[in-house]
């Protein structure tokens, strides 16, 4: 197993003596991830995702429970483990902002004991893999967020880690940059066998990157299954947002619920088990009134609400 956790619990205490509060950020977490898996570890803000990642990478001690990552106890063997894993926090930089990525890689290579030849070979490989070689010579502070994330990814892959922990890597990225990053992660997993452990509160990250989804809420795992199964049960609902120039009649198809309908706009929820999304779009576009249309995933909060409604397994 690449990652194994049993009964992992983390309790934070906040406030002073009289007003002290205990916050259970992670509660009795059981988790096994095999080498080479692509796992999305998802949950809303405050669910305990980042705390779990910090425990599994050795930054935090758990209050209770056991965990091994690549056979090492993260909080006891933090530096040894750091040589074998890569970690990317979407809102924290591994690069030195005043340097170019290539200069940062030189420093990181020295920290990871890569000799100059190995460093040069690896940077060239990653430049090709991430299609980012032309970005490596520009100061980090001049890069767009999407470009910077590709360079950050190269930084955490420099020492060829066996597991890649990514904490909200797509946060703040535009749609094109998000999609590109997702494709890169899949390619990395398929070509190099790197285990991907990704946290996100974006449902699309699960669909495009992961083969398995673990959903956490209030510190507890509430769902753990293949993404394909999740598609059949939880992600079958889509929201369709329509902009109009003239009033139209709302579609009356099975599984289509109208959430909002005015002369200028309409919002529908479509249960794709009952009616394919294409059939709904065909009907909406069969006339001149529609000027804008978008299909979006349900928000994670809705997915979680549906998980609680699933029959116990």
């Amino acid at each position, binding site marked *: 197993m690449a990652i194994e956790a049993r009964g992992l619990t983390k309790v*934070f*205490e906040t406030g002073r003596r009289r007003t002290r509060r205990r916050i259970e950020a992670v509660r009795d977490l059981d988790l096994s991830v095999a080498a080479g898996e692509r796992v999305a570890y998802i949950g809303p803000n405050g669910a305990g995702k980042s*705390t779990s990642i910090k425990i599994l990478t050795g930054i935090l001690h758990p209050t209770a429970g056991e965990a091994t990552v690549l056979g090492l106890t993260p909080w006891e063997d933090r530096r040894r483990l750091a040589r074998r894993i890569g970690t990317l926090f979407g809102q924290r930089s591994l690069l030195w902002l*005043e340097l170019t990525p290539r200069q940062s890689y030189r*420093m990181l290579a020295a*920290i990871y004991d890569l000799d100059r030849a190995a460093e040069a070979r690896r940077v060239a490989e990653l430049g090709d893999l991430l299609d980012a070689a032309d970005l490596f010579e520009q100061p980090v502070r001049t890069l767009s967020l999407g470009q910077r994330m590709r360079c950050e990814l190269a930084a955490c892959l420099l020492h060829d880690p066996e597991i890649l922990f990514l904490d909200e890597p797509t946060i703040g990225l535009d749609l094109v940059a998000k999609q590109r990053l997702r494709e890169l992660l899949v390619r990395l997993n398929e070509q190099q066998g790197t285990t991907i452990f990704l946290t996100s509160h974006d449902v699309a990250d699960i669909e495009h990157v992961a083969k398995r989804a673990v959903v956490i809420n209030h510190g507890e795992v509430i769902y753990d299954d293949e993404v394909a199964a999740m598609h059949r049960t939880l992600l079958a609902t889509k929201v369709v947002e329509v902009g109009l120039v003239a009033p139209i009649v709302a579609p009356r198809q099975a599984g289509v619920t109208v959430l909002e309908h005015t002369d200028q706009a309409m919002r529908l929820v479509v249960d794709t088990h009952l009616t394919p999304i294409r059939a709904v779009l065909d009907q909406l576009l069969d006339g001149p009134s529609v000027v804008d249309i978008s299909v979006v995933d349900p928000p994670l909060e809705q997915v979680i609400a549906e998980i609680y409604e699933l029959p116990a397994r």
Partner: protein
Amino acid sequence: MTHRAVVEAVRAAAHRSASDGGGLVVSVAFYVVIVGTLSGLWRVAVDANGGDLAGYSAVALTWYIITSEAAIVSVNARHIEDIGTDIAHGTVAVEMLRPASVLGIRMATEVGRGLPKVVVLWGAGAVVATVVAGAPPRPAALLLAAPSLVLAITANLFAQHTVAAIAFWIRDAGSVWFLYLKAVFITGGMIIPMELLPDGLQTASLFMPFRAMAYVPARLAAGYWEPALLLEQVFWIAVLAVVANAAFGAGERRLQVVGG
């Protein structure tokens, strides 16, 4: 942490600092104004005292001031505040993900950042001192003052990291930098040579590390051939390194328990 990682951290930071032409120009302008003013005041005081003040001539005091100021101005005065912010905002937690000492990389980076500055500032100061006062009283002593400046920066940075480590326990360590700077000003000999301090303060300063940060290189540049002062700096660096390492180690362990 490997020797190569330290060298790379120093090299990269030095390169970055040297490339910041605008920042260097501002630092030099600020420094020249300060040393011009202070050395002018000291020359008046020495002249009023018959050309000698506690063994320092007007020329010696000018070289003293340009060196003590270079040692201090080369280091970010508010570094304590910056480290505290990095601890409070979780930046240090991310640095813990590298297989290297957080303190070691930070120290190497900051020393590297200070090196180009100290070279440029001391060079500018030497020009000012030569023009307004004259050649160094004992040029050979500058050979001791040069490495002493590097040791001074190192001691200062280790001390700042030691003090800043309190941010692992308290949320706002920002105000501490002000007290620290005052200690360096007075007991470090940054503005006033130790020999001119009251006896009690002189004695007390012997037991504090601040002399190693300004007074020692300044005294050497003022023409005093006293190699033992370098050993004093090395002693304080060793002490501060042990304390800073212990403070950061304890802070990192606390961060692992309570989060950051």
